């Protein structure tokens, strides 16, 4: 389905995850963060950039990998993106919802 985010037509799943990363830019990220009631700080952006790099390298994401990333530890990850951090952060980053159970 399509949705207007930051004034652009964006393809998303029913849960609101973007399906075409090429449509993502910083303003879309900001708008998606606002939908999740998150004020993005430089720390958030570092994590978002890391997630996007992993996605481009086709590395599957999990909480364990985030903890070992050296970018953010699990505790801070939950503070930055409270309530379902991996889902929220990947949604803002414009990448698919992770399928990992861990």
């Amino acid at each position: 389905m399509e949705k207007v985010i930051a004034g652009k037509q964006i393809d998303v799943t029913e849960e609101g995850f973007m399906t075409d990363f090429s449509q993502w830019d910083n303003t879309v990220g900001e708008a998606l963060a606002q939908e999740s009631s998150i004020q993005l700080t430089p720390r958030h952006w570092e994590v978002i950039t890391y997630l996007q790099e992993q996605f481009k390298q086709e590395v599957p994401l999990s909480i364990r990998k985030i903890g070992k990333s050296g970018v953010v530890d699990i505790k801070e990850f939950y503070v930055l993106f409270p309530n379902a951090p991996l889902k929220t952060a990947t949604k803002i980053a414009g990448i698919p919802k992770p399928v990992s159970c861990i």
Partner: protein
Amino acid sequence: MKQNNYQGGIRKMMIILSKATLDNVYAAFVLANGARMEGIEAEMFFTFFGLEAVHKKKLEHLHIATVGNPAMHMPTLLGGLPGMEALATSMMKKEMERLDMPDVAEFLEILKASGVKLWACKLAMDMFHYQREDLIDDLDGVLTVGDFYKQGSGLGTHMLFI
């Protein structure tokens, strides 16, 4: 108010672990971690043999059961042979590493960092003569059953016994 909007979703998982076989321990850990990943609160209560999963000296040496476990598809006598449990356990551990599953100690660290509350059962500790210092430092405390139920109060709490 907030309660009037309650749609029946799960808000908190209270998971009781009473067994120390690796498969049960992992099931409990994955469910607790999975809850947090979905924004659901989670608390764990370690009782009876489940206490071994938070016992400093024992948590690294948990096994899967080869006897009395029909899913092993081996005759009970064979499963009871020396070394059989160790073999099955090492096979399972290899498979889990492939799936990027952490070992028990690391999994506990992940749970703690994710905000899962870890409680030990007072009665079981007394029964096994365990002291607080025998258990991992990350433990949030030692509770009675009544205390644990109190922790679970509120709308949308579910309890699970493993």
